[in-house]
């Protein structure tokens, strides 16, 4: 599986997206903290976190013996550059053309 496949697979699961939202709200949580307010088994959360980490969407920092999970948005920036930004250009050009036409009509 390529990096891009793994990344999209990680994002495709609603449970994993919920974990990302939780980390976005409160970053640097332990496994126990993450399990507290979620309707998922500890094992389920563990498996989701492993996949998110493999996709580089979660970064790990150790605080003594505690494993802290941080949301890493960098791959999302890469998705934006690769899959969103490059598709925006035609729409912006259409808006510019419309603006120009409307402004030219106003000169009559």
């Amino acid at each position, binding site marked *: 599986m390529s990096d891009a496949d793994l990344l999209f697979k990680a994002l495709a699961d609603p449970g994993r997206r919920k974990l990302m939202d939780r980390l976005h709200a409160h970053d640097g949580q332990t496994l126990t903290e993450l399990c507290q307010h979620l309707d998922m088994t500890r094992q389920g959360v563990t498996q989701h976190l492993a996949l998110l980490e493999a996709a580089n969407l979660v*970064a790990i920092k150790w605080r003594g013996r505690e494993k802290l999970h941080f949301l890493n948005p960098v791959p999302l920036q890469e998705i934006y550059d690769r899959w969103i930004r490059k598709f925006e250009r035609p729409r912006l050009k259409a808006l510019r053309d419309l603006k120009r036409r409307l402004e030219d009509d106003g000169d009559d």
Partner: protein
Amino acid sequence: MNSSNRSQFVYVIFIRTTPAKLWQALTEPHFIRQYWFDMTIDSAWKKGSPWKMSFPDGRPSDTGEILEIDPPRRMVIRWQNVWKPELEAEGPSRCTIELEPVEKAVKLTVTHEIERPESKLITAVSGGWPLVLSNLKSLLETAEVALTSHPTR
């Protein structure tokens, strides 16, 4: 960001390059300008050296000092904002940059933290770093940059 007494983020990117090339891109001004939206960084890159980031017109944006340096593995920078009063008032933050070789790439980890909750400085820099890292990756992997201007400046 977390709600303990510290605000912090940890960003990771994998770049297909060598630690030596990545270290060079992180410390040489003519490289930095290419992926960091024309900002410049001045430093002698030794422990205790002053560190300064400036806008293209020469105004300083952030100042500080190299707290630790271990080429090409790790550097820790004291990072104090000097261009926005409410960010400047928060005092210095700590930025750790770590390079770890992995297979045919380098794992670059940027940790930026300050000992205060709900930090506006950390929020502000957290928006810029993903763009800078994405550009840096493009530069080293394809000799281009994905973005040529910062979207909010």
